[in-house]
């Protein structure tokens, strides 16, 4: 006898769901019949609403949609006719509803086939829905829906129209609402790709109402009193976003220093003097000099750098690079794609960004085309170079501060984003006061403190065990394979090597880590990992950034692979687990954890100087 094929858990779950819905629908319909027509009508009532939401890309156009559909605002006369429909049923809209809603309709061959009433601002929904809730964001709700294919076809267009023509403050979310007993409506919503995000039960006993809600986000039942206002975020699509918080607007109009006396000093003028009388520095040739310069450090010797600077002043920075900078480095300096990663950072145009260790200013200059940027660079010649470059490119939103991130007393909580591109591994080379990991932790802590609430850190760095490292790529020490060695052995090797990268040999202090190692590091300073990408071309060429997501990795690899063997190998290795372990360059996006942020906020609010500010004092 042939064994019966197991339908699988999916089939069973689907069947159970169908049965549950069927019973629920039938039960509710019977209840409604009793409540509407029985002796209790008008005194006792129960209503169940489903709050239905959809992301625009999930909207499905039904194939039967006719061409020639037009969507526009419903005019006053037409709106009156729509209201008349309601009045004919003996359910007139309240005056509040008239003032607070806007109507958008879809026409097909001069016939109005569907329409949506949309909220204009915070208010209660009309009583005809049998419930009341507080709206904290503009929303649209579907007034009525039939299983007519023309109406179905029109609904996605209505939502698309609403998205493109927001009322004033900007419509961001679309929430449809349907009564549970209207099974055709529910089915129609689902056929379009909507999903039920929340269910609201409203019960009436005499004049009293009670509401119970359950949303996907909350995951549990919540009671709301008769007069309680049910917040929209409980149901809204946007409340489950990636966790980005609204941008803080309290960071002030200009970049500030934190004085030891507790006051803050703006970097706007020519001299940075606190009202307590202390002078923190001055602006010279476009560079805000705060504190002493770091010893020279760079890809070319100091004398050459000064020649390049002189040539850039005399001619143009591009000419200077073309004539005097070695070819490979010239590409690196002038590459307009250095800040291509900004296309993945959810930053508004008014965001303020700090570029730590800005170097030749490639990233800062590219970012300053879109945002306000502060380039922080310790080496005097490089800071001058960035200022010159910004001036010659006409970048008014680029400010250059000469100083070290620890030594410069920047006020806390004033940057929406901080860029640390290839910096973390170097910080321990200049600071020998503690073990490399401790120095790196202190650096990360400082960055976290500088972040505005909700801000983020973009951190790009190598993987200690990346494929390039196994392939013999030079480590930061200037030697091969040192990152792969145990730290103690690496220190011993570096201390005895003549090929050590820096002119001062301090052993192995340029620590990089594995993915897990970085996670530990971030956790210790209260930074939360919001995203991680692998940069296959290296983090200094961020044109290609692939998230640790198997689908995305395979999408990025879908072109190329000339032979079948290569294609198979790519497919087999194209997994997030593999890339996480052996990806060569990581790009992390970090946000301060809630507790950590609170600590930083407390420090700012109390006006207490940061650790470095105290040192200056």
């Amino acid at each position, binding site marked *: 006898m042939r064994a019966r094929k197991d339908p699988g858990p999916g089939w069973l779950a689907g069947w159970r769901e169908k049965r549950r819905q069927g019973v629920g629908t039938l039960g509710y319909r019977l209840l409604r019949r009793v409540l509407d027509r029985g002796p209790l009508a008008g005194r006792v009532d129960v209503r169940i609403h489903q709050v239905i*939401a959809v*992301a*625009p*890309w999930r909207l499905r*156009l*039904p*194939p*039967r*949609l006719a*061409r020639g559909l037009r969507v526009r605002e419903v005019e006053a006369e037409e709106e009156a006719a729509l209201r008349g429909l309601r009045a004919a049923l003996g359910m007139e809209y309240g005056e509040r509803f008239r003032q607070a809603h806007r109507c958008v309709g879809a026409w097909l061959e001069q016939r109005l086939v569907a329409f949506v009433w949309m909220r204009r601002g915070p208010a209660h929904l009309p009583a005809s829905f049998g419930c009341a809730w507080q709206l904290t964001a503009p929303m649209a709700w579907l007034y009525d829906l039939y299983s007519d294919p023309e109406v179905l076809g029109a609904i996605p267009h209505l939502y698309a129209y609403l998205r493109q023509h927001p009322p004033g403050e900007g419509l*961001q*979310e679309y929430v449809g609402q349907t009564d549970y007993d209207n099974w055709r409506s529910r089915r129609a919503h689902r056929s379009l790709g909507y*999903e039920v*995000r929340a269910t609201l039960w409203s019960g009436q006993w005499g004049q009293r109402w009670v509401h119970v809600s359950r949303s996907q986000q909350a995951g549990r039942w919540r009671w709301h009193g008769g007069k309680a206002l049910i917040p929209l975020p409980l149901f809204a*699509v*946007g409340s*489950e*976003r*990636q*966790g*980005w918080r609204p941008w803080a607007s309290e960071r002030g109009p200009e970049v500030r220093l934190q004085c030891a006396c507790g006051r803050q000093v703006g970097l706007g003028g020519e001299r940075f003097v606190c009202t307590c009388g202390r002078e923190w520095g001055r602006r010279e040739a476009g560079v805000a000099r705060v504190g002493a310069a770091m010893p020279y450090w760079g890809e070319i010797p100091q004398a050459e750098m000064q020649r390049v600077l002189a040539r850039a002043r005399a001619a143009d920075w591009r000419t200077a690079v073309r004539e005097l900078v070695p070819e490979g480095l010239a590409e690196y300096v002038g590459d307009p*794609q250095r800040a*291509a*990663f*900004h*296309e*993945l*950072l*959810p*930053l*508004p*145009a008014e965001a303020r960004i700090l570029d730590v260790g800005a170097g030749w200013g490639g990233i800062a200059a590219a970012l300053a*085309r*879109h945002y306000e940027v502060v380039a922080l660079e310790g080496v005097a010649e490089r800071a001058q170079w960035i200022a010159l470059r910004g001036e010659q490119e006409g970048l008014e939103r680029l400010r250059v501060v000469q100083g070290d991130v620890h030594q410069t007393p920047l006020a806390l909580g004033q940057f929406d984003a901080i860029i640390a591109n290839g910096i973390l591994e170097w910080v321990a080379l200049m600071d020998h006061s503690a073990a490399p990991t401790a120095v790196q932790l202190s650096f990360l802590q400082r960055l976290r403190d500088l972040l505005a609430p909700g801000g983020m850190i973009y951190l790009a760095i190598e993987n200690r065990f990346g494929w390039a490292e196994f392939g013999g790529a030079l480590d930061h020490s200037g030697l091969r394979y040192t990152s792969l060695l145990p730290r103690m052995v690496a220190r011993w090797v570096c201390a005895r090597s003549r090929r050590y990268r820096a002119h001062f040999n301090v052993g192995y202090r340029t620590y990089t880590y594995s993915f897990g190692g970085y996670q530990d590091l971030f956790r210790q300073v209260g930074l939360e990992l919001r*995203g991680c*990408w692998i940069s296959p071309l290296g983090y200094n060429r*961020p*044109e*290609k*950034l*692939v*998230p*640790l*997501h*198997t*689908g*995305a990795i*395979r*999408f*990025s690899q*879908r*072109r190329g*692979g*000339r032979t079948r063997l290569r*294609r198979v190998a790519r497919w087999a290795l194209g*997994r*997030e687990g593999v890339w996480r372990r052996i990806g060569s360059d990581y790009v992390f996006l970090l946000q301060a954890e809630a507790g950590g942020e609170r600590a930083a906020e407390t420090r700012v609010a109390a006006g207490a100087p940061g650790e470095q500010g105290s040192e200056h004092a």
Partner: protein
Amino acid sequence: MHELILEMVQMAPAPVALSRLPLDDGALVVGFAVGGDRRQRAQAPPLWVGKTGYGSRGCRRLRAEAQALGQLEGLAGTLPVPRLLGWRESEVRGEAVACLVQSGMAGTPMEGAGPRGWGSRGLPAALLAAGDWLRRFQRLADAQRLAGPRRGLTELAAEACARAENEAEGHAELAPLLTALSPVVAHAAARAEPGAASVPMHGDFWAENILAVRPVRSLHDMSVIDWSGLGAGSALDDLLTFTANLSDGAARRERLGRWQELFFAPGRVRDYLRDWAAAAGYGDRTARLAFYLFLLRRLVWELGLGLQTRSAGERAQARAEWSEVLAWLAQRRYPDPFLPMPS
């Protein structure tokens, strides 16, 4: 992040993983759903695909694609084509910036699923599916006049010749190539049977722009992307583009010397194309016009004179390749396609 992409990220019901890939004069920002288990993540298509374009050229290409996707909206329910989710054009410090967001499509480029046994063991399913897809697209799109009112092929030929000559004036180094084909097209147009009308064409219908869910069994397993070249052309244009670019490299090169021989050497592919021409109502002379018109369009496209950006290296390579192709054709006195080649 472009404001339109930012909106898409903010409106997502669940966290989105963003990927950035380079494009000519812009970038591709693709959103993937983060939730689900590993298998789901590996198989799920992108939620949406955003394209940003910088500079006048990048913006022009995206604008053309946005317009095309808008026109195609009526077909979205019947043919798997991406849907336009958003389009915005702005200016950043005097530089034009455009962004287009379209729905993500499932599948991988058809080239990855390359048709094995090309020309010897029957026609590959991929080619048949592509042919079926094109046939359906042309029927539906023609009914809706997606590429405007129908025009005669001779009119299109005259336009293409005029354009090639204009381009030749602007690019002296390319003039020998461009002016070599124009007279052939003009001659073929003069001799073509009257009455052949244009149909809507994709404009860049090749394997990389066709996403296939493997194994390809029917046209419903395929979706077509990159619609910036949507316009009017001959019924054969897209199919010839597809055939010319579909490469199962080694096998085909062993059997045939050059790609253009595919259209003349006896085989199932040539028979298939000939049947197509007959089904479109093209006689031998019209098929000849359609073929040389395709070559002229392709030449202009690959030399980077169309919407597509080409680097200096790519242009040089295209120039060298097309010099060979044209010399090969000239040596054989521009033979008729789909007919035995004169010895």
